[in-house]
């Protein structure tokens, strides 16, 4: 079971400038079931990325309780489960090839060396980078780098996949095809996904559930359920209606 339970999660950032601290997250409680695709939607600075940092164990100073697959994410260095993470930027190691970068992740999570080749080739095929395995990241376009990062995240066979605005740095056409790619892969693998975005249409296109965050301090304002069948189609008018509804809500009816 790869479920997630946040219980009254709060986060205060302390700095020299603000010794009393800046409240980034205010008592967020959220349960994500196994195999669910959940989008966290909200404006920049509302603390959605902080939720991912806490879930991934990168940020261990918070209040409240965080359980992943039933285990508490504690101040222990090893995370209870295997994670995939796609960051906003590709975060590839520039001195390694595409293959080398995925191998780095496979080795880190402890996947036996005998499986590397098959896994890597399989995932590179899936993301359309079959011919680029031995190429260094700087020789790839931004979209191809991000596809490498997606292949890396899936290749470790994660129980939970965390994605932090992974397509926001790409042009819209590339982002579109990447969303379709992601949805295709997700349909086959059915990982639990927590996907952070500020793009309402993207959230509607991808998610089962959309959790809307308030501006800072971030808290849950509203939840939407997207009841559209998969595979979803960009041209679907119901998707468009849903997106309008969510956008309207997020912007407070100002559009």
């Amino acid at each position, binding site marked *: 079971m790869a479920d997630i339970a946040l219980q009254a999660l709060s986060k205060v950032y302390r700095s020299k400038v603000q010794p009393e601290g800046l409240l980034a997250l205010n008592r967020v409680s959220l349960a994500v079931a196994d195999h669910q695709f959940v989008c966290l939607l909200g404006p920049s600075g509302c603390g959605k990325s902080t939720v991912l940092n806490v879930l*991934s*164990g*990168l940020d261990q100073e918070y209040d409240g309780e965080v359980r992943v697959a039933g285990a508490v994410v504690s101040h222990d*260095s*090893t*995370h209870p489960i*295997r*994670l995939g*993470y796609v*960051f906003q*930027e590709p*975060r590839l*190691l*520039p*001195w*390694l090839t595409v293959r080398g970068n995925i191998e*780095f*992740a496979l*080795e*880190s*999570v*402890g996947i036996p060396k005998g499986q590397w080749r098959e896994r890597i080739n399989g995932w590179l095929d899936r993301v359309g980078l079959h011919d680029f395995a031995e190429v*260094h990241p*700087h*020789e790839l376009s931004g979209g191809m780098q991000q596809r490498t990062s997606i292949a890396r995240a899936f290749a*470790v066979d994660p129980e939970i996949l*965390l994605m932090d605005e992974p397509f926001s740095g790409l042009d819209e056409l590339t982002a579109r095809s990447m969303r379709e790619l992601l949805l295709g892969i997700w349909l086959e693998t059915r990982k639990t996904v927590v996907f952070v975005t500020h793009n309402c249409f993207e959230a509607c296109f991808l998610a089962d559930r959309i959790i809307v965050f308030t501006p800072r301090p971030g808290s849950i304002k509203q939840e939407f359920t997207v009841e559209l069948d998969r595979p979803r189609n960009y041209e679907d008018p119901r998707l468009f209606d849903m997106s309008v509804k969510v956008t309207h809500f997020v912007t407070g009816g100002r559009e």
Partner: protein
Amino acid sequence: MVSLVVLLAVWQLASVAFTARYVPGPWLTFSAMWEHLSSGEIPRHFAFTMTRMLGSFAIAMAVGTVLGTLMGLYRRGEQMLDMWVMVGLTIPSLCYIIVSFMWLGLNDRGAVLAIAWTTFPSIAINIWQGVKAIDQRLIDMARVFRSSGMRRIVKVVIPQVLPYLMAAARFGLGVVWKVTVFVEVLGGSDGVGYMLNYSFQMFNMADVFAWTIFFTIIMLGIELLILKPIETRLFSWRPDIRA
């Protein structure tokens, strides 16, 4: 190759114009070099110089790397050392040399201390910049994939610092070899610097030329045959240094 021929021609002309007493021609210079090479004089003194260079280079790299790392990692370290490294960089190398000789005497220990002392601040600054430039986001990526601390250092941190380490080494070596000769002129009883000084006392320009050119050729050789290939190999992934 053409530039080399032109250089030799200009050199020969200058020799004719200013007489061989002031500008000994290529022939005279290289026969002097050959003479000292075959007599074993050049290899012997060169070995002394090399030993001092490598010893002090190793010390300077070690001290510079430790200080630079401390400065890059800890704000306290930066505050404490920043100013002093700058001071260290500003003080003329002659002062270090004199102080070292007065402390330790006109011997190898004094020489090595002087050279290392002159060199380590610039190495520390290079390493400091390198450590500060480490991309935390890549380290976080490695942590998310549950990479162990040791693997993070070896596979994520060190490769990022390596270009700076390499730059520090090349820069440091450049300083070391200049200062070493200088130290030997001032207080040596052997080494390339001492022989240069000796030739100067004798007003033997051909010998001065011979020693200088030999030394330069060796240093260029180290640069081109050792450092450059290492760098090309290490950083072949970088788009800008395709050799």
